[in-house]
């Protein structure tokens, strides 16, 4: 089973060979390193850019305007914050030109905490991103979705932000990507580059498996665990935490928790969320690791109130990161800052206990 980094690589391979991807670029995206997280190893269309995020986003916009299909990488989403004006322009080009100039570009960037990344390798970008009108935004939680969402992102005629959960890059999938070899070791041998600087690396070429066209539609959530006593609505690495907590609670006989992996943040699958609110009488918990003041979960919560207030028999909740200037390096600091399994469990237990 491919891990998430391999899945991104396979999707980009499919993209450059079948979907017209012309440029995969960014800092250290091309040889010799081919990605600080190995996501761009063995590809043909990769190249290294200057250390200049504004140039990266700007050039992607120009390529898109010129009818190319760029996939640009910002090395860490922590370093995307000097480009917000450009991201806004990319998002308003089609609208401001009254439907003339669309921007078919993908920006991918590692996201979130969970790797002891301290202040500048722990940022989240989801709350910020959802404020960028004109962008579609996806965030996979597993290899299969990473593959399929990247294919959809590439096929989009609009700018798509593809957030990569940093902490899950080495996490193996549970579902085979259509066309990938059954055996992990085979896949590794085929598409994992030898260590950087080695002799083998110099002549290495990827042996691509014949992966298939298997997009995951943008805008569709996935129910990763059934249940109607309460629901967790989340994405990225918190899908896994939520599922583990749900299994624990089920084992403890406390209830069956539905776990929804949103996968797309814009457009988002309101139908799926709305159904969960109805099915649980409002026992829904929104979880993500961005800071809690003006957070996307608060938007979802507002809409929950707006459309379901008189059906709520219990208080909907959110479990988010503390509103602080950063995530500290020392593990105690990080754990106290971004939601942990224990936080999710505490909220769910309280919710299950709450009287109707």
């Amino acid at each position, binding site marked *: 089973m491919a891990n998430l980094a391999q899945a991104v690589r396979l999707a980009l391979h499919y993209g450059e060979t079948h979907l017209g991807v*012309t*440029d995969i670029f960014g800092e250290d995206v091309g040889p010799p390193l081919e990605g600080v997280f190995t996501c761009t190893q063995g590809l043909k269309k990769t190249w290294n*850019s*200057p250390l*200049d995020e*504004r*140039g990266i*986003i*700007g*050039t*992607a*916009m*120009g*390529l*898109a*305007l*010129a*009818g*190319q299909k*760029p996939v640009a990488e910002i090395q860490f989403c922590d370093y995307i914050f000097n480009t917000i*004006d*450009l991201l806004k*322009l990319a998002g308003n*080009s*089609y*609208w*401001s*030109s*009254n*439907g*003339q*100039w*669309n921007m*078919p570009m993908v920006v991918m960037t590692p996201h979130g905490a969970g790797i002891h990344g301290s202040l500048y390798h722990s940022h989240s970008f989801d709350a910020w991103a959802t404020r960028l*009108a*004109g962008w*579609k935004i996806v965030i996979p939680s597993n290899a299969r979705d990473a593959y399929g969402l990247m294919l959809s992102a590439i*096929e*989009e*005629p*609009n700018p798509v932000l593809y957030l990569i959960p940093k902490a899950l890059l080495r996490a193996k999938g549970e579902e085979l990507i259509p066309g990938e070899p059954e055996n992990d070791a085979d896949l590794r041998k085929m598409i994992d580059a030898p260590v950087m600087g080695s002799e083998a690396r110099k002549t290495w070429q990827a042996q691509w498996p014949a992966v298939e066209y298997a997009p995951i539609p943008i805008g569709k959530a996935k129910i990763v665990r059934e249940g109607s006593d309460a629901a967790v609505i989340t994405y990225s690495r918190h899908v896994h935490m939520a599922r583990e907590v749900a299994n624990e609670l089920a084992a403890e006989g406390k209830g069956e928790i539905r776990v929804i992996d949103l996968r797309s943040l814009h457009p988002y699958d309101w139908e799926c969320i709305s159904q969960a609110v109805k099915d649980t009488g409002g026992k829904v918990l929104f979880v993500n690791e961005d800071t809690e003041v003006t957070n996307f979960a608060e938007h979802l919560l507002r809409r929950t109130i707006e459309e379901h207030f008189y059906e709520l028999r219990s208080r909907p909740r959110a479990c988010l990161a503390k509103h602080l200037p950063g995530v500290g390096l020392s593990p105690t600091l990080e754990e106290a800052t971004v939601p942990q399994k224990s936080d999710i469990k505490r909220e769910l237990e309280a919710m299950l206990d709450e009287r109707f």
Partner: protein
Amino acid sequence: MAKNQKAFPVQPFKDKDFALRFFKLMTRTRALEEKLIKMSKSSDGFFWIGGPGEEAFQVALGLQVDKGEGIEHDMLHLHYRSNGCVLSMGEPSINFIRQMRSVETDPYSGGRNFAAHVSKKEWNVVPITSTIETQFSVAPGTARAQWRAHKEGKKAGISIVLGGDAGTAEGDFATCLIWSSRPNEELPLLMIVTNNQFGISTPASTQHGEKNIADRGKAFGIKTGLADGNNPEKIWSALRDALEYVRESRKPYLLEVSVSRLNGHSSSSGANRVDGEEDCLETFQKKLEKLGWITAAEADKLHEEAVAEMNEGHEQARKENYPSADSIFDHVFAPKKTE
């Protein structure tokens, strides 16, 4: 010599027909700006910004552009003083007026954007943005597409990016220098700085340590040039040489053009005619008169005709509808081709 130069006489300004054609385009550009200013003053439009004083340069650019859709042709990253360029490419003047009035027929933005924010896919005029200098971060992208097409033996135009002097202080200008001069991947990109010595109210002399802005290209091995944007003949050949260099060498070129700003920054500063700036239209008319190619009366007539053209456009635009409230939801996302 690039293909489209063949359309022009070898020494264009020794050719009466060409010179008069050029003068007429300058006159129409000026009349258009005057109309737009008037509209803003009579609240028939909310904000004016434009290029009175840049006619010689903008017309010289518009005529020499390789116009068309797609990277085979030139890609244009203009800014908000480029009406003359687009008009000279053949754009009907009424469209600028429509945008000024923000009617739904505004082809550039559907009544959404300020005046002079042209956008025209058919001619590779990418959306002009209000954000100063961001076009200099975007232009390397279109130039890269053209660099690649050329390398693959396909027909490819060049990219042209344009901005003011004050704007070069934004990091985007440096981005453009850096990204266009990467070793072995130099880009076919003509960067133009129109230096009118001001950013709104702030004199360039108080903010710019550079003797010439163009000198900033030198550290990158970028070919640079300076040109007098008030002299049609000089700016024509400066642009011709720069364009030719980029088209043939497929390398970047940085051209600094001195221009006048005849009506101040925008309607925010009144848009009235200011003193002490050379008027390229006046200078050129005097020259043509001296050559005996035009009389003052004939020039006046051209101007009157241009005014009539603008009035007609305005009359038409007044009959057109404002966009409907629910049009705000149009064009947020482009549909998939297959949809």
